[in-house]
């Protein structure tokens, strides 16, 4: 247990250079103190920097994840992400939760792990199941780092007190345990696994379309139980949210967007302009403003690459 510090070990030098030795010991102390301070502070500082990077990335991901569109009330003065929008579905009217960290009405008491569990497993901190109007069946594919960044961003929001009304749902859904059964039939948890046979743009597009952007939640038709019919991926849904008819965005040249070039898809996602010069209205208008217009051009190109590689669904023609 001998120390290597010369100022402490070399006792024989003490009488000869008493002054110098004091200085040496002093220097050692100061150095140790500085080192100690550095050791304690440096990770703290870099943690703070990491956190800032995560929050910034989380903001991008919250846009790409379309969180704003549903979790912001439908009023001109609504505070983003403070919830309260009524979502009308064939299975009742759902009011979106407040995602700001307000202790009483928002996510104030949530840990980052709670946020991850809600996003990817569809389970609330109290263990109850979410209704699939919340797209956890899509978010389940999110990577660990994306979930951490989203959580960092949400935790850093300014808390907003906003009481959210109770869902107006049919009696048979009032017990959330029903969702356990629904999940068994319709929900496959699991992270996105890149397809090695495809290029990076396609894989990024698949991650954005299938998981983070959850395009299929509106554009893929549903079965009688409200689960997505994955054999008809993005083939349109005549009974979409708010009773809207959601278009087919497969490569079908008649009903879908088979005639759109990749550039036209990118322009649509950025500006909302259709190849014929019309501008999207309806719910896609909000998706463009809140989500796809905020993406990098690379991400829009990735979405286009994925959509162009999508087959027209095999189904009977009218």
């Amino acid at each position, binding site marked *: 247990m001998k120390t290597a510090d010369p100022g402490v070990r070399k006792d024989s030098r003490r009488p000869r250079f008493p002054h110098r030795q004091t200085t040496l010991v002093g220097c050692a102390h100061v150095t140790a103190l500085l080192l100690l301070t550095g050791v304690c502070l440096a990770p703290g500082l870099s943690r703070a920097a990491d956190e800032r990077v995560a929050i910034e990335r989380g903001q991008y991901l919250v846009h790409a994840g379309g969180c704003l569109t549903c979790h912001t009330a439908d009023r001109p003065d609504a505070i983003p992400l403070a919830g309260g929008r009524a979502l009308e579905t064939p299975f009742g009217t759902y009011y979106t939760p407040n995602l700001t960290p307000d202790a009483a009405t928002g996510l104030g008491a949530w840990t980052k792990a709670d946020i991850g569990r809600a996003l990817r497993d569809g389970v609330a901190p109290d263990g109850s199941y979410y209704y699939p109007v919340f797209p956890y069946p899509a978010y389940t594919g999110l990577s660990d780092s994306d979930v951490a960044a989203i959580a960092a961003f949400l935790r850093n929001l300014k808390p907003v007190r906003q009481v959210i009304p109770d869902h107006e749902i049919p009696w048979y859904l009032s017990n959330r345990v029903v969702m356990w059964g629904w999940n068994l039939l319709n929900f496959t948890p699991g992270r996105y696994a890149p397809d090695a046979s495809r290029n990076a743009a396609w894989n990024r597009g698949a991650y954005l379309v299938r998981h983070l952007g959850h395009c299929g939640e509106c554009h893929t038709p549903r079965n009688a139980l409200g689960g997505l019919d994955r054999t008809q991926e993005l083939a349109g849904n005549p009974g979409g949210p708010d009773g809207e008819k959601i278009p087919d965005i497969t490569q079908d040249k008649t009903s879908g967007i088979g005639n759109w070039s990749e550039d036209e898809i990118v322009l649509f996602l950025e500006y*909302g302009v259709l190849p014929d010069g*019309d501008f999207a*209205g309806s*719910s896609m208008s909000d998706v463009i403003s809140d989500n796809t217009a905020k993406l990098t051009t690379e991400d829009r190109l990735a979405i286009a690459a994925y959509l162009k590689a999508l087959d027209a669904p095999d189904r009977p023609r009218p």
Partner: protein
Amino acid sequence: MRRRALPTLLACIALNVPFVAWSATAPADAIKYRKAVMSAMGAHIGAFMLINFGKVEHQDHLKAHTSALADLGAEVKVLFPAGTDTGDTDALPLIWKEQDQFKKLVTDLETSSAKLRDAAAANDKAGTMAAFKAVGEACKGCHDRYRKADD
């Protein structure tokens, strides 16, 4: 004389308003005209995009399309007279209930389409893109709230 001025004016207003409304275009034709102008704007946007994003080489046509868009953009404010909320139209009655909000978007279109024309004329690429984005915001904003979704 002065005493009679106000009642006369009021009488004129009272008589003229229904007269003007009665003599105005048939609502069905006003709706057809509205659709024609909207289609024309869409066609100019379509042509603008093909040129602006380098798909066709008709740079010299850019001015024609952006000028037309600015002219038509300024016309939109008169395309929604009272009585054109029903019939063969996708315009929602909300337009006539939220006139202030609606007019704001229509004014945004007028302003942004004028900027688009000016930026394109000045060969200002960044300005053109920014103005095009603003035109899109006005179009989308209106279509989102005031146009019936596809059914």
